[in-house]
């Protein structure tokens, strides 16, 4: 009987290989909390926060677009958390996260009307310009913290104050891992849905898809909002984890370049690739910083070029051989 039920769920697409993998992924990372030392956990959580941005970039890449300014939404999400905390004295984590998601959603909704008309390199560069505008505004205005940014202190989870002084505790770790898995789940389902499949059609041939009756600009606007909101969520979680945000680390173009770098290295074949790619990148960076403090950028550059030359489909292609 149970087996029959399982079969029926499988047929309806409620259970499939990717979803089972995702659940395994979630439990593996939850168990890491008990197995790995603190610095590794810290790197994992940070790379998950950044991984959300890259998950957003994956959505855009599915439609053949890339944004050289996704650091803007990362920054916006982070500032939404930090400013709500400092100006409104709200300490409840879930409210803060709601604010960061809302900030990303609203801003990308309005900018989307402008950005959706561009493609290719212009789309990338326009986003770069927008993120540099945000950077310029923040750096030059004292009330927004200028180059110092903002810091946050103790937080509450459902009104429970956390005694632990450390920013990285079981609550913040669980929050990050569970939210990230949830987002992966949503993106996965979205990519399998008709609107997700449309993206590939747009990437392959925009004019033909528009002849089929797809409103291209609307679809691009939709995924722009989707991916920006993911980036904002990533930024918000990053502030909750690190406890500090500066414009230099988030909105400056080199940061967005890093995101694109990881996104290209990960490829857009499946939703695990961005997270794995981000994890890989954070570990390389922390080791490079530790062993070669003066030449870590050089090492990252070398990894990037080697990756592009020898893994043309991204890290995802190792797990997910494309059927020809």
């Amino acid at each position, binding site marked *: 009987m149970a087996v029959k039920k399982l079969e029926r769920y499988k047929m309806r697409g409620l259970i499939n290989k990717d979803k089972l993998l995702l659940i395994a992924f979630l439990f593996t990372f939850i168990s890491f909390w008990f197995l790995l030392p603190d610095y590794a956990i810290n790197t994992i959580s940070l790379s998950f926060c950044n991984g959300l941005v890259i998950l957003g970039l994956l959505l855009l890449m599915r439609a053949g677009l*890339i944004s050289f300014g996704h650091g803007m939404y990362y920054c916006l999400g982070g500032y939404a958390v930090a400013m709500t905390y400092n100006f409104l004295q709200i300490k409840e984590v879930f409210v803060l996260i709601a604010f960061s998601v809302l900030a990303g959603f609203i801003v990308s909704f309005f900018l989307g009307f402008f950005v959706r008309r561009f493609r290719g390199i212009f789309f990338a*560069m326009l986003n770069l310009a927008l993120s*540099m505008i945000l950077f310029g505004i923040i750096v030059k205005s004292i009330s927004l913290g200028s180059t110092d940014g903002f810091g946050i202190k103790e937080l509450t989870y459902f009104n429970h104050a956390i005694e632990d002084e450390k920013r990285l505790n079981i609550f913040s770790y669980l929050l990050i891992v569970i939210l990230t898995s949830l987002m992966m789940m949503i993106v996965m389902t979205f990519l399998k849905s008709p609107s997700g499949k449309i993206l590939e059609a747009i990437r392959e041939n*925009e004019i033909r898809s528009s002849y089929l009756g797809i409103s291209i600009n609307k679809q691009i606007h939709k995924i722009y909002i989707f991916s920006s909101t993911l980036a904002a969520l990533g930024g918000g979680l990053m502030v909750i984890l690190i406890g500090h945000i500066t414009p230099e680390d988030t909105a400056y173009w080199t940061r967005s370049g890093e995101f694109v770098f990881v996104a290209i290295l990960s490829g857009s074949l499946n939703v695990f690739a961005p997270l794995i790619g981000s994890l890989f990148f954070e570990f390389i960076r922390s080791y490079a910083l530790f062993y070669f403090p*003066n*030449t*870590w950028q050089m090492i990252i*550059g070398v990894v990037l*070029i080697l990756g592009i030359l020898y893994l043309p489909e991204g890290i995802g292609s190792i797990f997910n051989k494309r059927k020809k």
Partner: protein
Amino acid sequence: MASIPFIILDSLVYASWLFMVASGLTLIYGVMKVLNVAHGSLYAFGAYANAWLIGWYFNNYTEFEFLSFLFIPISALVIGIILGFLIEKFFLRKIYFRDEIVVVLVTYGLFLIFEDAMKLIFGTTSYLPYQPRMLLGNINVLSIPYVIYDLAIIGIAALIWFLFNFIIKFTKIGKLLLSVINDREMSSALGINVNKFFIYTFTFGCLLGCLGGAVSAPMISVVPGIGVEVIVLAFAVVVTGGLGSVTGAAIGALFIGLARTITIFYAPQLELFIVFFVMAIILSFKPEGLFGSKEVRKI
């Protein structure tokens, strides 16, 4: 109102500086469809090489001070040709057939490598090669004292613009280049060596980037990180003017130079903001830039 001549002069100087940096970038994009992020490091390399040579010369010799001007073309030529050739030959040639963004990322990787290489070669202390700029002295323009060296930059930029137009319109190389720009495959079928054009164009573009750095070295303090700031400004100029158009880059530089100087005079805290604001405004009216050509999409 009295500050209007100041504003015009300053924005002209700034625009010429922007154009010098951006012209190489737009040339490379126009011919090869490569948006070269490493252009910023070439600028920094040129500046460092020139600063180092000037420092070395003035520490060891006291006579023939005017010889120090020779270091500008020397450093630009040496660094530009060596690096341009190596980058094209060993990296870009392997990935021309890939997506534009992937090529941008390869140059971004090179940019990261060069940033650290410069720190290893030249150290992290700042260089101040002010001597050549002092040598030329000041001049009064409409009763405003102005540094002649800065005014000379306007001349150099105008010369570069003129050279570009002359080569493209009146020489055989220019005509061949135009055919390569318009249709790569057709021109190679007609017997034009496209690879050779690519390597020459790329090297020449890199040389212009290094020249921009070498010329501006006496006006700034050469520190790590100058390449990062320059490249985003150059991007803004090039995209505003229309990717691949040299005249567009010149007009874009003038627009952005003027807007920036006016903000510096009246609202200095908006300086960084205004450059990209102008770019966003112009793109919202002309999505392909001022002089950009509309791309024909495949069906």
